[in-house]
């Protein structure tokens, strides 16, 4: 089913978009990355990274600045403090030296202890709380002291040098050496050993300026002796004396004067410190000051931690905000995408509906028109002829009207399924509307192949259906137009296929016809007919011709057949075969049929009134008219209105009309019978009805089709058939009428075979009412032709 796949899934309307897409691919890929940038995920991840980078760059920069500033502060502070310490030490040493010099100067003939006591009482000695002053003789024995001294021997160092000697005071008794001893020789004469004045003070005195607030727990204040011994060193509350360190290394590593202190690892405890070590100018000692790097930078590190925490918090907040924004944006995107998708699918659906038939899912007229144009282009390009089949279901209106629209719809669906199955994959089936279908055969080799397809379609459609519980047959008429032979544009091609289809209808339906130029002129006539047919009734363009029927025995006119003619203002006289099918299609057959009945009945009565004998009046019923509900009412109405006797009226129906829906046809015929109307079968012998079925119908008359009569003399088969019909009619008790009698030979033959009545040009051709009356009069007056 080529087109049913279209019904399930939408296929692109415009196939040529594919290469165009490939072309645009390159440009879209170029654009794609800038497109990706605005993707929420990418955009917000990027923003987040930027924000994080900014936050952390600023933070690290700040921290670095703070660190540098703190470093410089500590280095400068160390120098500053070292200078203060140096000044304090120098002042303390000078005071001590002054005291020693004062003692030496004051010594006179008095005993030394009196001199000391005198000085003490005058307040010229430093406070006894901290300072002890001793005098010893040349042998080192202590002569006197401001304090109650334990050792007998002065163990304080005696340097062979001028000026004040400085050293640790070793106290052998306690093993402690936590006092510093400062001494001077009492005699100016350096050659001789002389006594000494010594001042002793706790070593901690020289580091008592240690401020915990500035120096911390790990800072250092120290006095370094010339020999590399720490006279005293304090860190925090710990005071040490007598430690040995590398004197030169400590002093050499020092920075220049007024320069910020450098960080060095202290040799004695491994702590990193901003260290300043300076030898004193006047005394053989050096001061050492150190600020612990860890402690000095502790505040900065705490600040750093704060900065880092803040940065982390800010980062977190930024990330949260961006994540939230990102999520919102993503949601918005998704909603937009969904709306777009909905619109798109809606548009697709709308497009699908716009291009497909609702009922069958087949392409509709608009879409087919597009497909046809495309295929015609292809056919032109590759020089491949294509064929267009125009299909119209026969008698669909009658079925739709009698079984209802739902059954009609079901029928159309079934037909579309069958059409789909009857053609190839590459063929296209479409529904133009109503009961009209078109089939496009894009690749055809020639007429024989097309005919084959058409026959297949005819067979497929013609297979019986079951609709609303009844078995049914429907046929189709097919018109075929070929491209490019029958038309080079879509409109022409469609029109010509349509023309061919009408020709198929005229050719008795259930067949296929190729278009030809001849048909075209016919169809032009038909088109004109169609437009003027609607106005024909009110313009009173219809008229009845009458043809007489003669009794074979007496030669008398015993009846008339009313024949419809259309006096077209331009075309002249138009025969029913040219417009009845048209009238059936558009429904005009009903009012026209009614008019025929009334007119025929009125004429019959008029003739009786004019003195003619009571003649029977035969009226032809069309298929649609026969099945119309209003038929009986119309016949009754005509009889009543004209006052014509019912038994004079004879309705003529065709074989095929009876066979179409036999039970119904039988019912209608019985109804007619009840009215007293006579019933004749027209064109008998041309249909497919079996003779045996005739018994089922309440008939009065059989009319042998004129085609048999025409060749009666020449054709043996026609003769035998005619004889058989005459015999059958006689056996069934029916009146047998021969139509189309044109010669005396035929009349002779029929008379021999005891045919009941004859009708034909040989006696009378159909004539308008007044002419018929004249002929009748002549016939009645004159003799029967020999």
């Amino acid at each position, binding site marked *: 089913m080529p087109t049913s796949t279209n019904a399930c899934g939408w296929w692109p309307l415009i196939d040529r978009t594919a290469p165009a897409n490939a072309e645009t691919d390159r440009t879209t890929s170029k654009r794609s990355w800038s497109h990706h940038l605005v993707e929420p995920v990418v955009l917000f991840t990027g923003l987040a990274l930027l924000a994080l980078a900014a936050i952390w760059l600023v933070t690290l920069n700040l921290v670095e600045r703070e660190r540098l500033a703190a470093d410089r502060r500590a280095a400068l502070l160390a120098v500053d403090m070292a200078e203060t310490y140096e000044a304090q030490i120098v002042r303390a040493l000078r005071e001590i030296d002054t005291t020693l010099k004062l003692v030496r100067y004051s010594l006179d003939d008095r005993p030394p202890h009196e001199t000391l006591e005198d000085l003490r009482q005058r307040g010229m000695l430093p406070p006894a709380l901290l300072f002890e002053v001793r005098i010893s003789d040349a042998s080192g024995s202590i002569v006197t002291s401001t304090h109650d001294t334990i050792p007998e021997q002065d163990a304080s160092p005696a340097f062979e040098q001028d000026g004040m000697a400085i050293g640790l005071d070793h106290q052998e008794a306690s093993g402690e050496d936590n006092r510093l001893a400062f001494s001077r020789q009492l005699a100016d004469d350096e050659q001789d050993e002389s006594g000494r004045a010594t001042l002793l003070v706790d070593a901690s005195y020289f580091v*008592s300026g240690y401020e915990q607030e500035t120096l911390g727990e790990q800072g250092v204040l120290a006095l370094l002796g010339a020999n590399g011994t720490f006279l005293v060193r304090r860190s925090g509350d710990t005071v040490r004396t007598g430690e040995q360190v590398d004197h030169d290394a400590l002093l050499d590593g020092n920075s220049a004067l007024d320069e910020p202190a450098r960080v060095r690892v202290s040799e004695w405890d491994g702590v990193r410190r901003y260290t300043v070590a300076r030898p004193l100018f006047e005394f053989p000692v050096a001061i050492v000051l150190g600020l612990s790097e860890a402690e000095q930078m502790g505040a900065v590190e705490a600040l750093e931690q704060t900065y880092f925490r803040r940065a982390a918090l800010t980062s977190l907040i930024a990330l949260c905000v961006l994540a939230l924004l990102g999520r919102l944006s993503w949601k918005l995107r998704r909603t937009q995408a969904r709306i777009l998708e909905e619109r798109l699918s809606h548009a697709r659906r709308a497009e699908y509906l716009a291009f497909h038939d609702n009922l069958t899912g087949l392409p509709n007229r608009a879409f087919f028109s597009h497909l046809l144009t495309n295929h015609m282009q292809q056919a032109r390009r590759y020089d491949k002829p294509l064929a267009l089949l125009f299909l119209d279901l026969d008698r669909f209106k009658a079925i739709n009207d009698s079984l209802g629209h739902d059954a009609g719809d079901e029928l159309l669906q079934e037909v579309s399924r069958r059409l789909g199955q009857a053609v190839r994959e590459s063929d296209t089936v479409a529904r133009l509307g109503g009961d009209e279908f078109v089939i496009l055969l894009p690749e055809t080799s020639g007429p024989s192949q097309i005919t084959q397809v058409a026959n297949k379609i005819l067979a497929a459609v013609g297979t019986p259906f079951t609709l609303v519980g009844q078995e049914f047959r429907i046929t189709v008429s097919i018109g075929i137009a070929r491209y490019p032979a029958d038309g080079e544009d879509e409109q022409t091609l469609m029109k010509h296929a349509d023309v061919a289809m009408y020709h198929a209808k005229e050719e008795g339906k259930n067949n296929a016809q190729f278009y030809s130029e001849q048909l075209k002129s016919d169809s032009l006539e038909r088109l004109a007919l169609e437009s003027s047919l609607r106005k024909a009734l009110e313009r009173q363009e219809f008229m009845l011709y009458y043809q007489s029927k003669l009794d074979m025995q007496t030669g008398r006119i015993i009846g008339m057949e009313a024949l419809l003619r259309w006096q077209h203002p331009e075309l002249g006289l138009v025969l029913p075969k040219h417009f009845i099918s048209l009238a059936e299609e558009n429904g005009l057959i009903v009012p026209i049929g009614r008019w025929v009945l009334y007119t025929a009945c009125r004429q019959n009565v008029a003739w009786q009134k004019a003195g003619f004998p009571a003649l029977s009046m035969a009226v032809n019923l069309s298929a649609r008219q026969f099945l119309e509900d209003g038929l009986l009412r119309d016949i009754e109405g005509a009889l009543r209105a004209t006052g014509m006797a019912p038994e004079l009226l004879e309705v003529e129906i065709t074989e095929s009309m009876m066979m179409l829906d036999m039970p119904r046809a039988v019912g209608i015929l019985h109804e007619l019978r009840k009215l007293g109307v006579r019933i004749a079968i027209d064109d008998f012998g041309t249909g497919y009805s079996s003779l045996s079925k005739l018994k089922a119908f309440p008939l009065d008359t059989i009319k042998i089709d004129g085609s048999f009569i025409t060749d009666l003399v020449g054709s043996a088969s026609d003769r035998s058939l005619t004889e058989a019909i005459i015999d059958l009619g006689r056996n069934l008790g029916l009146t047998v009428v021969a139509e189309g009698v044109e010669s005396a030979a035929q009349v002779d033959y029929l008379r021999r075979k005891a045919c009941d009545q004859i009708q034909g040009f040989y006696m009378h051709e159909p004539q308008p009412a007044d002419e018929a009356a004249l002929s009748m009069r002549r016939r009645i007056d004159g003799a029967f032709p020999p």
Partner: protein
Amino acid sequence: MPSRLKRIGCSLLLCLVSSVALAEVVVVVSAQNPLAKLTRSELADLYLGRTSRFPNGQPATPVDHRENSPAYLAFYREYLGQTPAQVKMHWSRLIFTGRGQPPHSLPDSKALADFVGENASAIGYLDDAHLDERLRVVAID
């Protein structure tokens, strides 16, 4: 064992002696000095070199006993809550940084009584056994 016992006995005795002595150490000024009482912190300020004037604005000259004498130990423990080492460290810092001099120390209670009795600006402390009419006991609260 006996030596350890003896040492413990000695310590106990010392404690007893010093507590008896402690109970008797009083802060004194000259009878000419109108100062009747001082707070502990005012007393500490005077003895730790934080001020050189009495609360009434008159100049003050605090005097000490010899370091480690019973009165010295008792005074600093009882009135200032300081050990001798703490006092020494305090003055060590002040002297080193050049911000003051410790109170003048006198050899015995008699010398101190004499000094305070003769100086209206003086303030000292001693066993109440050494009190005389030239001195006035200052109430410390």
